């Protein structure tokens, strides 16, 4: 583990739904320029952790400290504020694009808050002021840069819903990145991808970590992705954290093998 200051500190996170405890006293740390993978069998509570971090659920117990221009306590913030102010972006297990809108529009919607400000809450925009036009051009430039990185420039004006599956996955990541986040939470980005696409995704994630320098939280079933690119792995089982450490350590951890890898051998081969 290196010495950079933590980006997000999850402390004693617990989430109860009625009698069911989906997440039970989980703590871990995510750092900038690192990919922290959260793994575990189905129903281990991984997505629930994400939903707590990104404000879709309010945790029953726990503290979620996000560092940025100041410290944010995510558990006290409204869903959209987490994206807007604490700058946490996410993708979804089942892709959630704006299907009728074009690829470019999807990326511009992601820059909504910045553009709203520049358009003077639409007043300058309606008047067609230069200030807004410049901001819009900058936003398009950022979108284009991302389209180049995910190789979708040619499809920019097509409805997002018409893209092939793998392209939709990449677009969703690019859209999250267009919010210019400090922390990116990816919920099974490799699900449903073929090996080639999966490899491309690895490159993309590594470049996000190294070039953009942000922290990444990654939920993933595909062990080849996890072992290849993550710096740190957190293992959940039945809502509890059962292990934590570097990928190589995790692979040898008996508790993990028992709870997770041991029951699902193919997952290791990926």
């Amino acid at each position, binding site marked *: 583990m290196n010495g950079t200051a933590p980006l997000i500190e999850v402390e004693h996170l617990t989430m109860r739904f009625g009698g069911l405890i989906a997440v039970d006293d989980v703590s871990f740390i995510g750092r900038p320029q690192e990919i922290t993978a959260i793994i575990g069998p189905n129903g281990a509570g991984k997505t629930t952790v994400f939903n707590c971090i*990104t*404000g*879709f659920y309010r945790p029953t117990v726990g503290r979620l400290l996000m560092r940025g221009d100041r410290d944010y306590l995510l558990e006290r913030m409204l*869903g*959209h*504020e*987490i*994206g*807007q*102010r604490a700058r946490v*972006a*996410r993708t*979804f297990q089942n892709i*959630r*694009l*704006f*299907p*009728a*809108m*074009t690829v*470019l*529009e*999807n990326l*511009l*919607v*992601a*820059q*909504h*808050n910045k*553009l*709203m400000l520049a*358009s003077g*809450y*639409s007043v300058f*925009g*309606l008047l067609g002021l230069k200030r807004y036009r410049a901001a819009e051009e900058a936003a*398009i430039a950022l*979108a*284009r840069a991302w*389209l180049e990185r995910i190789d979708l*420039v040619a499809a*920019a*004006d097509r*409805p997002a819903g018409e893209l092939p599956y793998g392209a939709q996955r990449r677009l969703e990541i690019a*859209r*999250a990145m267009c*919010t210019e986040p400090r922390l990116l939470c990816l919920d099974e980005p490799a699900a449903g991808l073929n090996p080639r696409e999966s490899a491309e995704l690895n490159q993309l994630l590594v470049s996000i970590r190294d070039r953009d320098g942000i922290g990444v939280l990654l939920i993933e079933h595909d062990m080849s992705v996890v072992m290849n690119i993550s710096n740190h792995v957190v293992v959940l089982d039945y809502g509890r954290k059962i292990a934590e450490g570097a990928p190589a350590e995790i692979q040898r951890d008996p508790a993990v093998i028992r709870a997770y890898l041991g029951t699902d051998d193919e997952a290791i081969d990926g």
Partner: protein
Amino acid sequence: MDPRLPRMLKDAALTVLVAAALGIFIVGFRTVDVGSRTGLSFDYHFVDLGVALIVIFFGRLGLSLAATGLRWPAIALGIAMIAAGASPMKLPSGFLHWFVTLGGVLLVIRAIWPWADQAIVAAARTPTGRVIDQIGTRWLGWLLLGLAIVMPFTPFADQKTMDLGVLILTYVMLGWGLNIVVGLAGLLDLGYVAFYAVGAYTYALLSTQHGLGFWVVLPLAGMLAASFGVLLGFPVLRLRGDYLAIVTLGFGEIIRLVILNWFDLTNGPAGIGSIPGPTLFGAVFAETAPPGKQTVSEMLGIPFHGIHRLIFLYYIILLLALITNIFTQRMRRLPVGRAWEALREDETACKALGINPTNTKLTAFAVGAMFAGFAGSYFAAKQRFISPESFTFIESAIILAIVVLGGMGSQIGVVLAAVLLIGLPEWFRDLGNYRMLAFGIAMVLIMVFRPRGLIGHREPSIRLHPVAPHPVKSGGSG
């Protein structure tokens, strides 16, 4: 003999059975007030019911035939139905003639639809087809706009046509206003007429009691209606879409009830009369001017004619409608407009991107309400008399039907739908009674068969690559 025929016959028979169960009491026994002890007696309509059931049987059979690819029998059946409806044969009611004929027409359309569809696609590929497509999609808006501008100077522009033009344009404006809320932001507002009423009463009260002119009140009415929109929207916009629908439905009714019962302010059911019309640079449209004012004919030095007022009103609503359209088109290209559409597509994803859903919806709601407020003011100034009767749920339903039929989010679709839904019943007066029935059925059919409306195409709000190969569908501005 096709082996599938017995199954189709059985299906048609079952349909008839269900229809009979639906109709036997409500249609078969028409209650009439005769003033006897029980108060009611019956007018029996079993013959009508029977004829209708026969039509339903053949109609259903025809539809199954068409669906299984037996087009020619279906077409023959449809033509036979049209012939029966149009023939001098005496059916028990005029409605049944329409019922049979329309049923036949629909059946024929359904039967030839696959061919027609192919033919249209093929025709669109030919060079001439491409040109026509180009004209239709890129220039249709401008064409309609040109028509609308010159309309008052054409020989058709008599009292009746101008009245109809004003009426259609009013609904076009309301449709465009509601389109922001329903089509762009995906919020189902069933009480849109409430904001229309707020606008109308704002002008009526401020003009009759405080002597303010139309052009002064117009912006005020818009702002007031928008504030009502915010006030209502704030508590309910964070809820699920269908809650919003029913709350707005209730709200529309409440506004009407308040207007009806708040006698001191609104004069209750009797309404407010002698509302001054809009002025042109301070001049009034009348034969003789009130003291201290000038009539338009004096100002322009032309002889007085009643139609001048109507032409003036026509251009005002055309202007207001155009403003609504241009405003909407611009908003669509701004971040807030994109956020509206994004919310319609996926609210959860919006939240994850840091967009405040409540505020964004609220702006759509308020902007939509504002345009209803403008239109309401105009309505009061045009009618010169308003009462709660003009603001019933039916109005909201008509406006919604226009938006839905036009294709949610499509500006030009709203125009076509308004012409169709408002214009047609005016031309066929005797169908007026069936208008709302037809609207209701049309809304169901559109949702089932063509959920994206007449014009289902969505033009991107921005493009990265300049458009080249295929014809652009412009949003149009007419």
